């Protein structure tokens, strides 16, 4: 078993998501033009949770889309494992909307780059804002998040694992040391 430390528990995760939801509404002065876009896999569930919280605060039901960015990745030529693609599900028009892009961990920024390209193929949003649960540093591209749940300084041989009840059976954020096996 690799060494793993729980950094955020279930209550902590809830508080973070509540704060982010408030920040989103504050920055955009309400929810009028907003759409939520969860990035597969965990961003999708985070987006669902944020939409529920926003509904409680603002009584608004925001359009929610799911984005799969596999086809836009830049590591096909270098990675040995072939990624499994799945379907994006965006049933509304994103033209002129303020899109809140939601993912669990921000690391190199390459996934977000793919997501930006993918979104542009669906339309021309008025703005795209990035909401992230954990920023672990080590950016390789000039990308930053608008809403950050928690900054966790890491080294490259550590891994941040976000667990969500919907697929992992529990809520929490773990820091995993890959060296100690």
């Amino acid at each position, binding site marked *: 078993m690799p060494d793993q430390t729980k950094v955020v528990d279930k209550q902590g995760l809830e508080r973070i998501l509540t704060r982010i939801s408030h920040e989103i509404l504050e920055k955009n002065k309400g929810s009028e033009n907003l759409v939520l876009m969860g990035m597969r896999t965990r961003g999708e569930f985070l987006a669902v949770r944020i939409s529920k919280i926003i509904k409680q605060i603002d009584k608004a039901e925001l359009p929610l889309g799911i984005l799969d960015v596999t086809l836009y990745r830049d590591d096909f030529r270098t990675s040995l*494992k*072939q990624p499994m693609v799945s379907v994006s599900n965006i049933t509304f028009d994103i033209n002129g909307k303020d899109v809140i892009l939601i993912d669990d961990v921000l690391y190199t920024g390459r996934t977000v780059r793919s997501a930006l390209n993918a979104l*542009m*193929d*669906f*339309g021309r949003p008025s703005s795209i804002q990035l909401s992230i649960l954990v920023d672990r540093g080590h950016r390789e591209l000039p990308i930053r998040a608008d809403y950050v749940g928690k900054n966790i300084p890491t080294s490259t041989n550590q891994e941040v694992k976000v667990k969500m009840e919907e697929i992992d059976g529990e809520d929490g954020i773990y820091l995993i040391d890959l060296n100690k096996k």
Partner: protein
Amino acid sequence: MPLSSRHLLGLQNVPKEDIQLILETANTFREVLERPIKKVPTLQGKTIVNLFYENSTRTRISFELAEKRLSSDTINFSLSTSSVKKGESLKDTIKNIEAMKIDMIIIRHAAAGTPLYLTKICNANIINAGDGIHEHPTQALLDMYSLRERFGKLDGLKVCIVGDISHSRVALSNIFGLKTMGAKVSVCGPSTMIPRFIEKLGIDVIYDIDKAIKENDVLNVLRIQLERNAGGLFPSLREYAKYFGITRERLDKHNKDITILHPGPINRGVEISSEVADGGNQIILHQVTNGVAVRMAVLYLLGTLN
């Protein structure tokens, strides 16, 4: 889980997992085809050659669109304007094209086994787009995708392939693929068009079209291939139409909801009447739309294999 082979030569001996992976992946590309911008950058920088030694409308356009929608560079080769007319051999043609640094070859050829031969003389990924009377795997895959879309599953589905079985690469690929996926497959046609020993593939042979309609969920109606001398195998087109043509009256007689597939091009009034070809039972144009998605899936899975 990547595919188990770096070529797609046919569906014979292709494991179930591979077929499932292709059909699942095709779902993603069906979604891409519904977008305002129907293009993804996945195969950027890859060069794909469409080498068609035989005529084709659907398959060639479908492959070309699939390639372009994955952002690969596409070269089209057609027999009539090439140096094959000056007598250049297949081997020399392939060697020269390969020397121009290409990644993948889509080949259609009148001789069975040509795609396999290509895998032995060059390094590109090879996709069979029809080799003589042997196999046409992407057609069978898109047929299976369309049936899965319609019925939700292939396992246990009763499919009868009707027509010129002995000259049909579509039939053979469908038989291999559908059998692997657990469907119950039969063939129907005049005895002159049913190859000997075909039942050894584990399928039923039916000589009566009414029986075929009665016993199956799906008819995959094949084209009578006059270019392969099919005309000599029955007295006249009219007689074929009378005994094996799928007409409204014939379907009405059985009063059941049967799904009709046709790989195209259609000989209207021969193997299928116009009424049926444009009617409510057929999913012929769905097959064509799905064809692009299925080919994108195959290109993606082979093209991103390292």
